[in-house]
């Protein structure tokens, strides 16, 4: 049984590495494998070197990190909420992050770093507003996770309305930028954005994996959790905040990449993984593979025109999801 599980890890890792290699090798411009290998080592044609090292590599890495963050976040949330339809964007993170970015756009902030920071702050802000709303609504001292989820949805809806009002009077330029962002894209990946997302994913994702065992207990129900000595209230909030932070990081780096957080945990559970520590890790690997593959499709299918990444992930993810649902029912 143990060996069987190990085989899954190798399978997932190999899939990710293979997809990543194809993604570095292929793009809008056809380059031979030899040229790509030379360029990776910094040899040969400077244009090829620039394309492989400064465009494709950071883009593939950013896609992998975004997918990993969304997958892990979704797996943790679905476990903590005991709801297979939970996903990171339901927490209001996406809406909050978008509000942050649009506010930055509209007050004339132009640097990438500032926009990333503003959207991250917006996402985190939305999570805390959701927490406050759920506390205001709860009559008992124990905050209900389902109340938290609904609070997140409401905060998200309010944020979306605010964005629409802000964009209605904005310059076409701003609208286009915001639209692009809301469809998700890894096109602006730079080594710097990869570095920051790597750091935040490592820290927040590591914490989520560390506390993932609590989610196993939560999944048994709050009363059982309490009888096992786990403070369900705190554990639930912790899973909620960590998942939201992971998702906020991905949103600020690549905009809204839909369906990954919803679909990927189902695929991971389909592999027979039940405990949340391995589940979160497996969902991270599968999410990374899915987003790298989707981004490869986004930039090659209709080249030189790029397709929106979020639409491709939905197109790839929804059939998986439906197959999975059939198998469960």
């Amino acid at each position, binding site marked *: 049984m143990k060996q069987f599980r190990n085989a899954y890890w190798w399978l997932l890792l190999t899939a990710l590495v293979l997809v990543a290699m194809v993604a570095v090798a292929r793009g809008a*411009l056809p380059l031979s494998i030899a040229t790509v290998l030379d360029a990776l080592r910094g040899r040969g044609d400077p*244009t090829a070197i620039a394309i492989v090292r400064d465009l*494709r590599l950071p883009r593939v890495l950013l896609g992998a990190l975004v997918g990993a963050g969304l997958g892990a976040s979704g797996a943790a949330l679905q476990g903590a909420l005991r709801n297979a339809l939970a996903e990171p964007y339901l927490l209001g993170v996406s809406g909050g992050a978008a509000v942050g970015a649009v506010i930055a*756009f509209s007050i004339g902030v132009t640097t*990438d770093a500032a926009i990333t920071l503003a959207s991250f702050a917006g996402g985190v802000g939305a999570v805390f507003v959701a927490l406050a709303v759920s506390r205001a609504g709860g009559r008992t001292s124990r905050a209900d996770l389902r109340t938290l989820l609904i609070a997140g949805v409401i905060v998200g809806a309010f944020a979306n309305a605010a964005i629409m009002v802000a964009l209605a009077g904005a310059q076409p330029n701003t609208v286009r930028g915001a639209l692009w962002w809301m469809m998700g894209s890894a096109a602006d990946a730079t080594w710097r954005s990869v570095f920051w997302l790597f750091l935040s994913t490592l820290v927040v994702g590591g914490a989520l994996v560390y506390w993932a065992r609590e989610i196993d207990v939560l999944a048994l129900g709050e009363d059982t959790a309490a009888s096992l000595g786990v403070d369900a209230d705190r554990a639930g909030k912790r899973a909620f905040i960590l998942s939201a932070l992971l998702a906020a990081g991905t949103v600020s780096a690549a905009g809204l990449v839909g369906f990954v957080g919803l679909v990927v945990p189902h695929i991971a559970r389909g592999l027979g993984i039940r405990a949340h520590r391995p589940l979160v890790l497996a969902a991270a690997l599968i999410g990374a593979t899915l987003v790298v593959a989707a981004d490869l499709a986004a930039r090659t299918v209709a*080249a*030189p*025109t*790029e397709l929106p990444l979020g639409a491709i992930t939905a197109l790839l993810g929804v059939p998986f999801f439906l197959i999975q649902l059939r198998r469960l029912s």
Partner: protein
Amino acid sequence: MFFRRVALFAFAISVAPFACDKSSAPTRVLRDDFGDSVAIPRSAPTRIVSLNPATTEMLFTIGAGSRLVGRTKYDLYPDSARLVPELGDGLRPNVEAVLGARPDLVILYASQDNRPAARRFRAAGVNTLAIKNDHIADFGRTISILGAILHDSARAQTVIDSVTSTLARVANATRGTERPRVFWHIWDAPLITVGSGSFMDELINIAGGNNVYADITGPSGPITLEDVARRDPDFILAGPIGAGTIKSDPRWRIVRAARSGKVLVVDTLLVARPSVRLGEAAISLANQLHPGIIR
């Protein structure tokens, strides 16, 4: 005003020498509309990617069409532009596809959307020129920069002279005539019109009309149908598709000009590009607003 800007510009680039003795090194540099420095190399660029329909037209007009190795999918004039490889969009261009054309000069529109791409072209060592050409004055400015970079300022000046004299001729012909109030229909859903930040507003003025939405300060802006009816324009300008909608959609009956058939169909490839055919565009608009005023 326009002439002075061009003259000032020519002066600015001529007094910015960049002493350097390598033959491949630039002789001079200038600042583009992103505030970045653009090299004017000793030898004219031979592989140019133009990601803006207006600059593509200009390059063909000053005889550099054969140097183009890439354009956007919207660059359809002149006809020979269609033979240049298409590289996708001009806003948020596909950086890999553009670099793959191995350009020694990339020209793109200076909007916020294009900043990351411009930065990447520069990082890859490609000379990059970002130009914001929203006004008629920007046409002269842009083409003189292109002339300087291509070492053919004389030809660029000829084009400027011919366009400015045509514009002046149209402005003279329409001076003192009755100025109809004009609404320019750009897009239907949402309804978008031209503001005073656009060369199209300037074209209306030169052609002897007044833009009813000159109070919009940007190049364009969203409006409502009721407000169009309230402002009650004498004429509606629209492209062939927009004009079809205005004539067939019953909602437009609340606008007097639409009701009485005062809808003028314009050639969007001609009048919606701030480029070498600005003069022609002004003539055609003037003749639509004041039939027979220019022969």
